């Protein structure tokens, strides 16, 4: 087979424009002086407006807290899980992780809401940051497990035997040999979990309380009413931030 033919290359260019152009246009117009889709000059006006919007800032801080906590917990649990599944398969656990990945978000959201409401009959708690964090942990573990597992598959099982042979106990063999070998993938998984958590709207909106509105929830509420230049600015920031995180994650994953 020859190299990619010319029509195919032209098609691919069009496909890449389709994938990237909408975001680039949105980002470009976030610097537009006018609130309408007519270019009237470069301006940071909408960024300033976003910065001075206390509701947005508060929501962004909430998102950050949720994402950091959920990432920390799910990275630890997911890494341990991947290690546990590495040699000893557990079809039920793997199956539920898979399922958690493909379950429609709205179903995950309502089932968690129903679960929390049921639990609250016995405990004096309400929906809030903690319920959001737990929900995020439950859906981001699978991402962590997949990324870490992919790296574990490339690790020579004899390394751990060598560690045991040289006097390391099971924990030390994990801590000093296997974990260092998969650490870049763990970092990549954490970045991935962070973006997934930071971006979630559907599940979060079902389990958030009055004091735990996240940035996607505020953005969604505004966007539902129509296009808003402040949302354009936030979108551009999110695209940039996520892009950087994902590029770093990809780099870590493949080294």
């Amino acid at each position: 087979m020859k190299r990619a033919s010319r029509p195919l290359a032209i098609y691919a260019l069009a496909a890449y424009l389709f994938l990237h152009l909408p975001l680039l246009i949105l980002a470009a117009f976030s610097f537009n002086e006018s609130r309408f889709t007519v270019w009237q000059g470069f301006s940071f006006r909408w960024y300033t407006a976003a910065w001075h919007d206390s509701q947005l800032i508060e929501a962004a801080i909430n998102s950050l807290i949720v994402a950091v906590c959920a990432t920390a917990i799910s990275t630890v649990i997911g890494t341990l899980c991947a290690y546990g599944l590495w040699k000893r398969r557990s079809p039920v656990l793997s199956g539920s992780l898979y399922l958690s990945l493909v379950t429609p978000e709205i179903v995950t959201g309502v089932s968690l809401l129903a679960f929390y409401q049921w639990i609250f009959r016995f405990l004096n708690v309400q929906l809030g940051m903690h319920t959001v964090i737990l929900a995020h942990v439950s859906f981001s573990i699978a991402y962590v497990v997949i990324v870490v597992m992919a790296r574990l598959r490339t690790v020579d099982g004899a390394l751990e035997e060598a560690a045991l042979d040289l006097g390391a106990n099971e924990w030390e063999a994990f801590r000093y040999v296997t974990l260092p070998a998969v650490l870049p993938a763990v970092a990549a998984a954490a970045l991935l979990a962070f973006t997934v958590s930071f971006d979630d709207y559907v599940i979060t909106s079902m389990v958030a309380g009055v004091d735990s509105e996240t940035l996607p929830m505020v953005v969604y509420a505004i966007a539902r009413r129509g296009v808003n230049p402040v949302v354009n600015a936030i979108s551009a920031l999110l695209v940039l931030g996520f892009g950087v995180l994902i590029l770093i994650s990809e780099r870590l994953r493949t080294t």
Partner: protein
Amino acid sequence: MESVLELRDISKHYPTHRAVNGVTLNIARGEFFSLLGPSGCGKTTTLRLIAGFEEPTSGEIRLNGAAIQHLKPYERNVSTVFQNYALFPHLTVQQNIEFGLRRKGENEIGRRVREVLELVQLGGKEARRPTEISGGERQRVALARSLVLAPDVLLLDEPLSALDPNLRKQVRAELKNIQRRVGITFLFVTHDQEEALSLSDRLGVMHAGILEQVGTPEEVYLRPSTRFVASFLGAVNWINDVGVRPEVTRVTKLAPDRHVRSHPATVLHSTFLGNCVHIETRLDDGQLAVAEVSRAEASFAPGERVHLWWQPADELSFK
């Protein structure tokens, strides 16, 4: 002789097959012992049972007189040199060698690492990573990493097989030399009979999970106890149910005298091998036999009628 390691009727059975079947073996302190056999014969499984990576289905493993078969790998004072060395890729040579000492909380780590590095001639490579040194050097790091712990028995799982053939003979000599100097018991697993014969004080030949014979290289080569051992250790001509090695098989045109055993044959062809010549013949009953003779004796034409003969003492016979 004092035994450092004893295997008492150990077996390892898997759902589908029996990897090791009733192996009993005593290894003396300071001995260089080889387990020899084809792949899948159970020799590596035996090694893994001793190291503690697998638990035997039945039987007892004793180290210095104490049963160890239920102990974890890190609770046994044995150490393994892995086939592909299993060096820790994220650690330097120095850190690889220190690893075991640190886990065991030993003293004088610096001095002991220096000594072992000198022993395996790796001075100056301390700061390198395993990917930055040659295959032969990696093998020596693996060796040093285990030797530094002064194990009661050092287990070596085909440690030469990952090396290229030119290097193998040289490393073989170094290995023997190091073993003599440190005096540690070596249990060496290999499928290469030349390695086993040249390195070992004693060796055991395994086949299908069973230890078929144990003895010195001379005993095992010259007086194999089974047909399998005889043919695994070298070529054998099977003449009237009697085994004769090619190097003691002689060829003459005239019938030899009555003091030797002989058999008529027809020459098929000769193969020149430099230091000797292989005469391939067909016996009258249809079997093939090879005689390894010196160049001077090797003037036979294909189709020529000859007599093969040998000394009765050179016959391999089995109970």
